[in-house]
Structures are given as structure tokens and as C-alpha cells.
């Protein structure tokens, strides 16, 4: 049956849909209760989540004289995104910047974040981060943070990236666990927040319910000053990642702790009616080696391409300039057949790169060793080597004729110093058409999410009416729009601790933000 739909009809439907979208959260919130029959415990602040953001917030509350408890779905702060990160904390105004004479400004930092994120970042969390990151980092440094150094990092115009010498975020958790223990902060482990009590008339969150995963026992905790949601992102399970991010659904590596599945965010949607934003944006690197479904490490393919390798898709064709910023390559993978690509080279390029870099630098996060690389070459599922192009294509599934043509075209481009396909300019080395050939197959490596709650410049969560909900704050990966459309290294760890630091102080009355 054909039905003519007028422009007026379409506009009317769109308007109705808009009204429905606006009304639905409020209707959901009508089911919320202002308080349970009985509070089991009363404190100034309840923090939900015991990662970098949550523990930092709890310590600040305690230092401001507030009573605080933490509820956490994980069983340990070491089961958190901060523990898994590479120990890079970007910050403006740190003591280490001053010691090393680095020139910087919060405005330059905020601009870098916005620019890298294709201007899809939200200025409230970005500016708070840029302004206060230095004091948050210095707090960690002054409380026993393991050795670190300042380093230049792509995407940051000034010297502001502090790297742990260990290259591990576990150093931050070590500090926070110790500080929380010294302050005798109670952490309810394995006890996720399962309900938020919301007094809709007063527009105020009054407390939460948390439920033990082991016993099912519920505890209702009244929060006189506020609740801070620091429950992490959505990349912890393939299911939650795939639900929110269609471009990587069903493929690629899912990096995170299993508790980071976004369920706490949905509780807030259900009970308080707060909208979620930026949920489809994630930090996704185009270099995940997929092992056993959705696990696997990360290949620093640019060391191979810098030495003369090229990136090709299943058709054997290049699809981007290899010099593109890596997170900007990721969106191209969704359009490739099968959603993957392969770094392709000959033996001399592979050997030259191996001579220059350790195996663990080429395949890292976490690092593989020579034995594992050899095992994977033999397995031939992700790492391929072959004496002939025919054999290489049979192993890897790359189209033979496509790759043969691409190889000729690429070598002609190297010869002419003119890449007419994608304008790459650094090519000096041809790929030997007689082989032997090497290749590593890569999918998106999805490691943190950039969506969540909209917040004010005081980290107050916005309600369905886009006005702040009283007594409800967010910190860390649950905050929407810090990174915009593309994530720049160091900003997630930096924001987690800075937003936790500020949320804890703001809920206790700090106003100079």
C-alpha cells in the first residue's frame, strides 16, 4: 500500500516525536521515590564508583570535613579503567610544568581538546578540566605518586602530558587506595548502586540504594549533600559497547573492566529522568589484534608504515593516507569490507622495524614477546607471512588481484614521489614485489567511552529539563562530551582525577571554579 505523506504530516510527526522525547524522561522519573521506608545509613556524600574519579572525590569530601561512603560494582579499585590505562595524565599548571619551565595556559589546553575532538566537546567539563587539572595532579604527586616525567604528546600544543615511568595507571590507584584507607573511607565492594532516590517536587536527589551482588542485601544510604556518579563508561563488555556504538558492533576489541557496562547510567535515566549524550563516541584505535572474539592487544602499525609499509583493506586497496592521525583512521574501518584492515610490507621493512623497536613496543597494550609473535605467525589468524603474494593472500583473505594492482600503483607512487591516491608524502622505500611479505590484521581497539551525563560547569548533572538536578554530580567517564568526537591521549585519566577532585570539593561547598 502506498501512502502519500505530506510535509505538514512529517513536521507534525517530528514535533510529536520531539514532545515524546521531552516528556518520556519526566514520566520515567514519576516512578521514583523521594526516600525509602527507612534509611540504613546517613552521610554527607555518597560516591558511586571506586575508580580514579570516585576515590579522588571521596578523599576530597573527607578532607573538607564531610562524611562519605563509596559503593562499587567491582570488587576492587584495581578493577577499574584507571588501573588499565597507560599512566598518562594531561594537566595545565602542574608543579612539574613549573619545575621544567613549560609554558602553557588553560585556554590553550581547552582549545587543544576542542580542536582534536572536532568541536563536539562541551565547554563546561572541558574548561573545568583545563583550569583545575594542575591542582588535581599535584594532589596525587604530593600524596606519594610513583615516579613520573613530563613528555610531549601528539594533540597537545604544549608540554603538559605527565607520564608515569611505569607506563601504568595502577600508580594512581595505589595512591588513592592508600589515601582512602588513611581517611577510613568505607567502600562497599561488589555492591552496585541500584536505585537513586529523587524528590521530584524539590528537584533533589536524596540518596541511593545499593545491592550486594553476593547476598542480594540492599542498603539505603541518605546523602545530605549529594551523590557523585563515577561509575565508569560502557566499553567493559562487548554487549554494552555494541549497543551504544553501531560502527563497531560485533567486531573489534572491547577494552575495559566488566563492571563498566553503563548500567548505573541507565538507573539514573530511570529514576531521575536525566538524558544521556555523546553515547556513540568512544576512544577507538584502528589497530586491535582480535583474539578469541573480542579480546586482544594493540599494534603500533605506524612504526611499520613509517618504515615503508602501507595499510590495505580486504580488497587489497589502500583507503587512507597512512600518515593520518590514528584515531582519525578508525572511522574509515567501518566502511571497509569486514570492518578491518592490514598493515602490509615486505621482509626488509619488517626486519628494519623489528631492529629498531622492541617486540613489546610494536605489539603492546599489553606487550607481546618474541615467542608470542612467533606463535601467532604460525597460527596465521592475525599475523601473516608468506614467500609469495599468492600465498599471502590465501592466508590473510586479501584479494590477490586487488593487492597486486595496489602494490604496483604504490611502488610507482614511491618512484614518482607522488601519491595520487591519498597524498602521502613520506614514501622512500618500495615494497619488493617478489616478497617475502608480512602483514598484521587489525580491527578497532575500543578502550574508553566519551558519553554520559550532561553537566554544568560545577559538574551538576542536568535533568530532563536541562536544568541541574539538586544533589546529583558526575565525574570521570560518566560525564558526556569531554573529548568530543575524537579522544586525545592523556585527557581521560586527567579528567577522571580532576573531575573527581573538583566534584568532591564542590559538593562540600567549593565555588571558585
Amino acid at each position, binding site marked *: 500500500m502506498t501512502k502519500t505523506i505530506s510535509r505538514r504530516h512529517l513536521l507534525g510527526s517530528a514535533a510529536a516525536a520531539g514532545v515524546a522525547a521531552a516528556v518520556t524522561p519526566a514520566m520515567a522519573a514519576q516512578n521514583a521515590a523521594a526516600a525509602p521506608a527507612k534509611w540504613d545509613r546517613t552521610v554527607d556524600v555518597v560516591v558511586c564508583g571506586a575508580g580514579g574519579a570516585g576515590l579522588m572525590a571521596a578523599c576530597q569530601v573527607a578532607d573538607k570535613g564531610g562524611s562519605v561512603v563509596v559503593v562499587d560494582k*567491582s*570488587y*576492587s579499585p*584495581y*578493577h*577499574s579503567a584507571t*588501573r*588499565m590505562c597507560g599512566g598518562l595524565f594531561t594537566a595545565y599548571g602542574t608543579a612539574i610544568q613549573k619545575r621544567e619551565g613549560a609554558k602553557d595556559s588553560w585556554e590553550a589546553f581547552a582549545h587543544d581538546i576542542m580542536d582534536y575532538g572536532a568541536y563536539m566537546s562541551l565547554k563546561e567539563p572541558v574548561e573545568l578540566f583545563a583550569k583545575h587539572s594542575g591542582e588535581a595532579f599535584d594532589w596525587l604527586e604530593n600524596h606519594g605518586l610513583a615516579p613520573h616525567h613530563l613528555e610531549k604528546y601528539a594533540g597537545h600544543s604544549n608540554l603538559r602530558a605527565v607520564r608515569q615511568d611505569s607506563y601504568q595507571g595502577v600508580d594512581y590507584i595505589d595512591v588513592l587506595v592508600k589515601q582512602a584507607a588513611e581517611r577510613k573511607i568505607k567502600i562497599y565492594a*561488589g555492591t552496585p548502586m541500584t536505585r537513586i532516590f529523587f524528590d521530584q517536587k524539590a528537584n533533589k536527589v536524596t540518596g541511593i540504594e545499593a545491592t550486594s551482588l553476593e547476598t542480594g542485601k540492599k542498603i539505603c544510604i541518605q546523602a545530605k549533600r549529594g551523590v557523585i556518579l563515577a561509575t565508569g563508561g560502557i566499553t567493559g563488555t562487548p554487549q554494552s559497547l555494541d549497543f551504544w556504538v553501531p560502527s563497531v558492533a560485533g567486531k573489534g576489541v572491547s577494552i575495559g*573492566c*566488566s*563492571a563498566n557496562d553503563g548500567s548505573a547510567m541507565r538507573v539514573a535515566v530511570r529514576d531521575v529522568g536525566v538524558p544521556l549524550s555523546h553515547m556513540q563516541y568512544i576512544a577507538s584505535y584502528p589497530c586491535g589484534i582480535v*583474539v*578469541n572474539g573480542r*579480546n*586482544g*592487544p594493540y599494534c603500533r602499525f605506524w612504526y611499520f608504515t613509517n618504515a615503508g609499509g602501507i595499510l590495505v583493506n580486504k580488497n587489497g586497496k589502500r583507503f587512507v593516507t597512512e600518515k593520518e592521525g590514528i584515531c582519525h583512521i578508525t572511522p574509515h574501518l567501518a566502511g571497509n569490507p569486514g570492518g578491518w584492515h592490514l598493515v602490509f610490507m615486505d621482509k626488509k621493512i619488517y626486519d628494519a622495524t623489528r631492529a629498531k623497536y622492541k617486540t613489546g613496543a610494536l605489539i603492546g597494550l*599489553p*606487550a*607481546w*614477546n618474541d*615467542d*608470542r609473535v612467533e606463535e601467532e605467525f604460525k597460527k596465521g589468524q592475525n599475523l601473516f607471512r608468506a614467500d609469495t603474494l599468492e600465498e599471502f593472500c590465501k592466508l590473510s583473505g586479501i584479494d590477490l588481484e586487488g593487492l597486486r594492482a595496489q602494490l604496483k600503483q604504490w611502488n610507482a607512487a614511491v618512484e614518482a614521489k607522488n601519491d595520487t591516491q591519498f597524498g602521502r608524502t613520506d614514501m622512500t622505500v618500495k615494497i619488493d614485489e617478489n616478497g617475502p611479505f608480512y602483514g598484521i590484521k587489525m580491527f578497532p581497539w575500543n578502550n574508553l567511552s566519551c558519553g554520559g551525563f550532561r553537566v554544568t560547569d560545577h559538574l551538576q548533572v542536568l535533568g530532563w529539563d536541562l536544568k541541574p538536578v539538586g544533589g546529583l554530580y558526575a565525574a570521570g567517564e560518566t560525564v558526556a562530551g569531554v573529548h568530543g568526537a575524537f579522544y586525545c591521549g592523556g585527557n581521560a585519566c586527567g579528567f577522571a582525577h580532576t573531575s573527581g577532585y573538583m566534584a568532591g570539593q564542590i559538593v562540600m561547598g567549593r565555588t571558585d571554579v
Partner: protein
Amino acid sequence: MLIRNVAIALASFALLGLSQANAAVNGSHASLKCDTCHAGQAAPAAPAQKTCLQCHGSYEALAAKTKGDKFNPHDSHMGRIDCTQCHAMHKKSHYICHDCHAIKDRKFKGE
């Protein structure tokens, strides 16, 4: 070795559509009735962690048993993932830490 010691036989089914006749069970679980792990399931499915822990004690106790110098599969950054992500009774067990990390001596008992 560490991972051999880890090899506490926990149940896994992952055999949707597989009949009782060919649902062979490995190792120490071979003598158990199907219902020990799969009671109440409408369709064959991997048992929940709670089911495994009914016989194998607490997660903390398992973590204590497998504590090592570097890696403890029961106390990793992944948290308390389902037992059946590694342990399988109807097929070969699979040590998922090794998916990402290159770990020596990662074999299960009998592997």
C-alpha cells in the same frame, strides 16, 4: 605450575542444541549429574558463577589459591568475570588472560 593449579574444574556447557548423548564431560565433573550445573535451565547454557561457587567456595578463596608473583587470574583487572569464560567442561578450557597478555605456562590441567 600456577595455571595448572588454577585448573579447578568448573562447569561450562556452551552447547546450545547439543544433545545429552554427545555432551561429554571432562575430568572430575564427569561423574556429576547434569543437574549439578544445569538445574532449572530451560535450554542448555553455561552455568552462572554462583552455581560454580556453591561447590568451589568463595571467589576470594579461589584468588588466594592462585596468587602468584605477577598474574592472578582470579584477581585481575577484569574483575570477577564468569568462570566459564576460561573453564569449560564440554570442550577445551581457554585461558583468556593469554588473549591479550603473553603469559608463559598458561596451560590448564590436562591441556
